[in-house]
């Protein structure tokens, strides 16, 4: 961190927040709020005179509340820049009857109670999101007695207690009597791998963190009896198994089973726990002096605001979603944005550093390029057809469309920022937007080809490139059997499936149409598939109004890993297809015979307007 702080080509903005982001890959404009520190970080030499004289004492967040700090303080000993900061919520200095003691003792006169937040505008080519993580608060798990029993602590608190720079100078003692404990227990998966309380995912780092802690504890205090209660130990990385073996060889007992209850002895403050040892099948009682809860990792609380600023997407867990889990594991769906560390998913230091290196390298590619190559699959606007209604802008998950309704400036796609979902094309009510390589005409032609012969024997399936089509692929490579009557039309995103495509398929005699895409949490185009659902819901109403059974239009979210689901859905489609009668199809064809496409309608309107204008001119 010191190297970063001193690097001549790195501008480090600490204690700052992202306020606004606009632009696109290679041309981002970023506004940063640099919060007031009330101490000039360039002048402060961290002499600590202000710290010594400050009369305020509040719990030190960095030391997990085991010691106190002052209102003027350094957040952590190795903070960069090495300068003090005033927490104005704690400080008495801003009061009319001011304390002002720090101001008096500061020889360098670098304290300013009236300092204001500054706004810095930056132009950047790429953005790396490395916002880190939060940790799970186990208070809700009553059975473990965290906050009820003083000797029950979290793994984060343990780190401070055992640390040489911590409040106990590395002397590991019980909070209640400051004595070295004789028996210490660790409970794993606290707040992780639970669908009822906490989070369903594995936090990745807790097993190895506990193993490291037990080895550390045994090295310093060989006589301490250590017991680890676990579901299973996940020691999968390089040399991890060795460390696990070392821990067991040092005498740490690993008991497979999570305690159901922790009880405190009010006199000794010792802890009694009951646990079913699933290896022996017996319920065991253990007496401990201290208990450490190995807490899981959470996505950052401010993830939603970062998501909004950078038009990112998040998984159901709340972590940021990468562009592709295998092919683009550090890229965000928004071009020019990359992830490093736990912002993307819980990971250890080694993986975080690896990902950070990869993200920096990916960003470097953009920064070193005069021009960048983008995918050719982007939307394109016919300006003559566009009415500047802004519907495309509202639908675009990337906000990569420039359009102004008031000045009637037609929509313009920023190719560098367009990811090519095609939602704008599907939503445009005037047929003004289409997509390169997936044009309306191309898709219509596929529908025509499918239904040209034996239309009653076929079901038309629209499948998104990344998930549903991947699911079909997976079903194929898994040799799963399903009826061959389905005809798949691939689009990049289900958001591209225009209602006209569906209606056109029905007009040409399709008995069943299926629209399939990614699950909501997996959408590769941020939230484009929400528009698909909305559109299908509208279509169901529309079909019903026309007297067509809405059941003939089906919707399904299928991920690339769900080959089985794909095969199952295809079988269900076949069953449904068999139930559609020829009369029904003929009725639908008749009901849709006057279907006019929005593009044709718009062209007719333009021609009429032109004729009217010419007439008026004459």
């Amino acid at each position, binding site marked *: 961190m010191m190297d970063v702080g001193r690097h001549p080509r790195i501008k480090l903005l600490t204690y700052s927040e992202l306020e606004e982001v606009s632009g696109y890959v290679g041309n981002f404009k970023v506004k940063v709020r640099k919060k007031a520190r009330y101490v000039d970080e360039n002048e402060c030499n961290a002499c600590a005179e202000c710290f010594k004289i400050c009369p305020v004492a509040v719990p030190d967040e960095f030391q997990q509340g085991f010691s106190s700090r002052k209102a003027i303080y350094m957040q952590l000993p190795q903070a960069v820049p090495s300068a003090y900061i005033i927490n104005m919520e704690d400080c008495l200095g801003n009061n009319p009857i001011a304390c002002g003691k720090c101001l008096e003792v500061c020889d360098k006169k670098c304290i300013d109670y009236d300092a204001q937040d500054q706004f810095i505008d930056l132009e950047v080519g790429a953005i790396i999101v490395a916002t880190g993580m939060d940790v799970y608060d186990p208070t809700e798990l009553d059975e473990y007695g965290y906050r009820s029993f003083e000797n029950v602590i979290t793994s984060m608190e343990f780190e401070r207690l055992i640390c040489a720079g911590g409040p106990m100078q590395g002397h590991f003692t019980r909070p209640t009597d400051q004595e070295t404990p004789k028996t210490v227990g660790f409970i794993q998966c606290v707040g992780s791998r639970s669908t009822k309380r906490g989070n369903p995912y594995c936090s990745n780092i807790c097993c190895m963190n506990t193993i490291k802690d037990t080895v550390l504890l045994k090295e310093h205090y060989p006589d301490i009896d250590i017991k680890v209660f676990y579901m299973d130990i996940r020691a999968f990385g390089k040399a991890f198994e060795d460390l696990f073996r070392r821990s067991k060889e040092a005498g740490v007992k690993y008991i497979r089973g999570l305690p159901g209850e922790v009880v405190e002895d009010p006199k000794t403050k010792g802890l009694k726990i009951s646990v079913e040892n699933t290896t022996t099948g017996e319920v065991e009682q253990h007496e401990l002096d201290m208990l450490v809860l190995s807490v899981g990792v959470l996505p950052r609380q401010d993830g939603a605001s970062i998501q909004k600023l950078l038009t990112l997407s998040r998984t159901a867990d709340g972590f940021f979603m990468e562009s592709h889990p295998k092919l683009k594991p550090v890229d965000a769906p928004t071009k020019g944005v990359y992830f490093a560390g736990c912002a993307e998913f819980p990971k250890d230091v080694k993986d975080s550093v690896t990902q950070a290196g990869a993200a920096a390298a990916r960003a470097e590619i953009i920064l070193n390029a005069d021009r960048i190559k983008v995918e050719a699959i982007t939307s394109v606007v016919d300006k003559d057809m566009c009415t500047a209604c802004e519907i495309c802008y509202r639908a675009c998950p990337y906000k990569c469309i420039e359009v102004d309704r008031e000045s009637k400036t037609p929509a313009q796609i920023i190719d560098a920022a367009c990811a090519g979902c095609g939602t704008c094309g599907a939503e445009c009510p005037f047929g003004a937007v289409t997509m390169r390589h997936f044009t309306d005409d191309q898709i219509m032609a596929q529908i025509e080809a499918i239904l040209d012969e034996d239309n009653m024997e076929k079901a038309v399936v629209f499948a998104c490139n990344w998930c549903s089509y991947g699911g079909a692929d997976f079903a194929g490579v898994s040799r799963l059997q399903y009826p061959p009557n389905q005809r798949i039309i691939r689009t990049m995103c289900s958001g591209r499936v225009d209602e006209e495509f569906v209606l056109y398929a029905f007009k040409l005699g399709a008995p069943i149409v299926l629209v399939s895409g990614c699950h*909501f949490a997996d959408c590769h185009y941020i939230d484009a598939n929400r528009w698909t659902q909305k559109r299908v819901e509208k279509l169901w109403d529309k079909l*019903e109004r026309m007297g067509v059974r*809405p059941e003939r*239009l*089906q919707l399904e979210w299928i991920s690339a890993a769900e080959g089985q689901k794909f095969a199952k*859905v295809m079988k269900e489609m076949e069953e*449904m297809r068999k139930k559609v009668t020829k009369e029904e199809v003929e009725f639908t064809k008749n009901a849709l015979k006057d279907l006019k496409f929005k593009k044709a309608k718009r062209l007719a309107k333009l021609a009429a307007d032109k004729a009217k204008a010419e007439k008026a001119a004459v």
Partner: protein
Amino acid sequence: MAQEADFKCLRCGHQFKLPFDPKGPMVERACPKCLSNSVRRMKEEKKK
């Protein structure tokens, strides 16, 4: 408490209730019986 609405599965015909907030974000829905995503909200007139 979250509002509930009536839904119908367009695959198996099963009718059920699910939390529904007309102003809230769109959520992925599935039929509790057949797990299909072809789940349609039944508006008042449709129920009649």
